[in-house]
């Protein structure tokens, strides 16, 4: 038999939080909870496995295709298992004016990955403006935000990762 999607603790957390999320919407609008429900699944599993999409869809009363359609529209959802750390580097205009492309090149070298590539440990991506243009350049690691980055700061952040 295939491995179950969740451990018992994860299942409990999922059930409790789905109930809370659904309580924010009108009873006949359960499908509105799609984004928070997908986020919850990703928090638990690190990505959105197909069985998870099916489960979310069934709780929200929609087809799995609908869950997939939404999941594939938004860049923060992972339909494939990413590296342990997802590194999103902003290279948009204000950051580029403060050297973001050079910072990305430095990171590519440091991690041995090109932007758009992944290994077990890292997924490295270029991303769009992160609302940090006044504290450029910037990046996010698993949604944790880092800004006003210098070489020294960047090295310190990456050296601390397990």
């Amino acid at each position, binding site marked *: 038999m295939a491995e179950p999607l969740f451990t018992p603790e994860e299942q409990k957390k999922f059930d409790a939080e789905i109930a809370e999320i659904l309580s924010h919407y009108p009873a006949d609008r359960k499908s509105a909870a*799609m*984004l928070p429900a997908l986020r919850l699944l990703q928090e638990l599993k690190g990505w959105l496995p197909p069985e998870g999409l099916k489960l979310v869809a069934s709780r929200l009363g929609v087809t799995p295709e609908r869950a997939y359609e939404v999941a594939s529209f938004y860049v923060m959802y992972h339909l494939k298992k990413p590296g342990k750390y997802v590194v999103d580097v902003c290279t*948009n*205009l204000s950051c580029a004016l403060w*050297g973001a492309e050079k910072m990305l090149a*430095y990171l590519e070298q440091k991690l041995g990955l090109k932007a758009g590539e992944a290994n077990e440990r890292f997924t490295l991506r270029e991303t769009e403006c992160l*609302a940090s243009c006044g504290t450029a350049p910037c990046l996010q690691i698993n949604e944790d935000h880092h800004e006003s980055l210098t070489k020294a700061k960047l090295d310190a952040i990456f050296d601390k990762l397990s």
Partner: protein
Amino acid sequence: MATTAFEPLISAAWGKPNSWKLDEYKKRGGYKGLEKALEMAPAQIIDEVKKSNLRGRGGAGFPTGLKWSFVPKDSPKPKYLAVNGDESEPGTFKDRYILENDPHMMLEGIAIASYALGVHTCYVYLRGEFKFQAERTNAAIREAYAAGIFGKKVLGKDYQLDCYVVRGAGAYICGEETALLESLEGKKGWPRLKPPFPAVVGLFGCPTVVNNVETLASVPHVFTRGPAWYAGLGTDKSGGTRLVCLSGTVNRPGVYEVPLEATFNQLIFDDKYGRGLPPGRKVKAVIPGGSSAPILSPDELDVAMEFEAVKVKQTMAGSGGVIVMDDTTCMVRSLWRVARFYAEESCGQCTPCREGTPWQTRLLRKIEEGRGEPGDVEILSNVASSIAPYPPIGLGNTICALGDAAALPTHSFLMRFRDEFEAHIREHRCPFGDKPWGAFGDWS
């Protein structure tokens, strides 16, 4: 305006200890505006906001009171308030500071707006990347429930209001108000055809007001100090103060609260604000209101950063995102990066936008990499025109204004820097060599 010292309204508490906590907010007079508003009839609240000349801070500068007045009073359907905290237009980073430093100011605005509109449920839609900002906002909402500001009774009045944070998941288009509503309904962010406007058919088919975070944070001040006072701070058609976001090649980038008559020159050069450019640099071009706004030349910066004044220059004050590009910056490279953003973020519903945005990007890449051919600049200009001709702003052939947003930079860069584009083609290379962004800061 009189020469009295400028008093910031929105940013007054930023950086002070625990500025985001309810206690601190109340010590500063917080929720007094809501108390006053709750003593008024809903229609009177809307009138006061109209009189204040408050205009939306999300991009279009639409008069807030007027927007509220479009919500039908006799509709049997529930009504909703959706707060736009998607903040994804390149160059814009102001709302996050409100959420981080003073979320209660926005919550107070939400309560006033909701009461005026007969709204019982408000959703605060924050871009997915705002994890920390969502935590702050949620903490403030919990405090507000515990203090009887939200919940079954608002400050003891027989009126129920619930407020929830919803995080997006990485899609600029969800800042467009109807895409935001689709996303709130649990769908992909495909903008809707307008009309009908959200005030009539919005969330779940019900009347809905969509307002920006800063717009709502401005509302309490209209009630604590009165609409006439608020209107008097601004210009004829635009009340209050506003936040502007300064980035790019300046010594002191950041968010600054300014009087509406402050000019771009003041923002960039004043000691209070940007403190000029690094030594040896000169302004080449300035984006006045987020990356979609047509650029201004160095000799056009004596214009006030206010909606009407900027409009005269055929551009827009938009989201308040001011980006300074200096004389070491390649305009082709800059436009290519901006074009790539819009191509990446197009939702793909309309042919001109879906096909035109990557086409612009390919042409710009070709020119920047020295492979441009005679005629490419004309093609580029034609592609931009088929998404949205210009001037004026707003002629887009598409469902939403992302089409215009993608075409406007192309038009305006070509109008002012056509020579530089032609030079790339003539010389078969970027004249800036391997330093298209200049060399600046730690990563030079």
